Every structure is written in C-alpha cells, then in structure tokens.
C-alpha cells in the first residue's frame, strides 16, 4: 500500500519537475534569443541545475507548487483587467476630487477556494485592483482595507471570489 503511494507520488513529482523544466526552457529561449550550440548547451545545463536546486528546496514534494494553467485563467485576466480599469478611474477621480471623498474601512471576506495558491491569487487580485487592499490572508479569511464604501460593497458581492473559485474547476 505504502509502496503504491510512493510510486504514485514519485510519478507526480516527476510530472511537476518536467512541467517546471518546460517552463524554464521556454523562459530561457525567450530571454536569450541566441541559438549557438554552446549557449544552448549552457542553457540546458542552467535549466537542469535550477530544477535540481528547486528539487532540493522541496518544490515537488508538496502541492503548494501545483500550478495549473487553464484556459479559464486567461478569461479571468480579461475580467480582472476590466475591473482594474474601472476602479482605477474611480480612484483617480477620488484623488483629484478637491473634497477627497473617502471613507476607509476594513471588511473581512471569506475565500471559497481553499487551496493556498487560489487564496493568493484572490488576495493579489484584490490588492491589484485600486481601492481595495488585502491586508492579511489568514485561514481563508481575507482582511480587506477599502478606500470607500462602494468598493467594500462591491467586494462583498463576491464576484471575484466566485471567479477565483471557478478557476480550479477548469
């Protein structure tokens, strides 16, 4: 029993390592843009060394590194870009308004997704959107500092949370 688990997890580890290796190779080729054999060999060496070091760092043992690249992520980015655009205009108008109409407040929202990566995506999306700022992510509860009440209400509706939770299903 334990042996099958071991075999299984080893194959998963290998898969993760290969995924990382592919990403690194793509990154190297894009950065370098020079295709002499010597540099390609050095690039292969660099990618393998990096994978070895990350292996020693314990990247493939736990699931925290399990990134998934779904098509939904692109859709999410498009949606997020629109959100950022809208709230940027809002915050810019607030800043330039001579009366400075702000009503700072802290709200707590619950993240539906329980995977740490998803929670981090949610937290960072909140911070990335001007007007809301994730102060602390703790056991799935995100403390958010909002610049005004409208932003807080918008957040409480949970649109962003739903979209982030949906990422994992894709």
């Amino acid at each position, binding site marked *: 029993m334990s042996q099958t688990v071991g075999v299984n*997890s080893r194959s*998963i580890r290998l898969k993760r390592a290969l995924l990382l290796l592919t990403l690194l190779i793509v*990154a190297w080729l*894009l*950065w370098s*843009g020079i295709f002499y054999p010597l540099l390609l060999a050095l690039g292969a060496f660099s990618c393998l060394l990096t994978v070895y070091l990350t292996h020693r760092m314990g990247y493939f*043992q*736990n*699931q*925290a590194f399990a990134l998934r690249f779904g098509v939904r992520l692109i859709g999410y980015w498009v949606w997020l870009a629109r959100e*950022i*655009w809208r709230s*940027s205009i809002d*915050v*810019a108008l607030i*800043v*330039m308004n001579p009366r*400075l109409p*702000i*009503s*700072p*407040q*802290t709200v*707590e929202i619950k993240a539906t997704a329980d995977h*740490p990566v998803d929670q981090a995506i949610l*937290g*960072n*999306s909140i*911070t*990335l*959107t*001007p*007007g*809301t*700022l*994730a*102060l*602390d*992510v*703790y*056991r799935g509860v995100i*403390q958010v*500092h909002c*610049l005004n009440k409208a932003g807080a209400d918008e957040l409480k509706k949970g649109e962003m949370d739903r979209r982030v939770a949906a990422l994992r299903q894709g």
Partner: protein
Amino acid sequence: MALDIASWVLLSMGGLFVFIGGVGVLRMPDFYTRIHASSLTDTMGAILIILGIMLQAGASLAAIKLAMILLFLLITSPTATNALASAALLAGVRPCGTDPVMSADKGIDLDTNADAGSLGEGKDT
C-alpha cells in the same frame, strides 16, 4: 503611424495615472489610504506605460521581454504591497475606521504555528 499615435496615447495616459498616484500619496490622510493611491501607479501606470513601449518595440524579442516584465510586475507588485501592509499591521499601525483590538486578536498571531502546515507540509495526493 497609427501605432505611434496609439503608443503615445498609452504612454501619456500611463504618465497621467502615475502623476495622479503621486498626488494621491501626498493628499491621502494615513498609511493605508496612501497605499491605495500608490497602487494606481503600480497597476494602471505600469500597465499602460509598458503597453506603450511594447507598441514602440514592435513584433520582436524585446516586446516579448517587455510582456514578461509586465507579467512579473503584475505578480510582484501586489505581493510587495501586501507584505508592506502586513508589516504595518504587525508593527501596530492601525487602519482608520477600525476598532483598536482588531489587528491584535484576529489579524496575525505570531505564536501559533497551526496554519504553517497549510503550505509547507501540505497533503500530497
């Protein structure tokens, strides 16, 4: 030519957002609201300016590198902002409009190690 105009429009709009962000940092009353203002610079300003430069670079390796820089910025700058805000909470800077005990009891407790496992020794399937 059309590309040039589009690029300049993007660049100047980015510059405008950076400027407004700067004004906001000066005008806002406390630490956390200032972060809100500076996030204008971080997000909209950076996105627009890098898009503008990408149009200038055209379809080349430089444009891809710029896209990677943009991606990198979009991942790291909210992280840095979050770390900054957490550090401020830890150091006891209270956000205005909250009750004083909030950061102390619900926020970050330093002593329990309970949730450390959520990342480090996570369940492997």
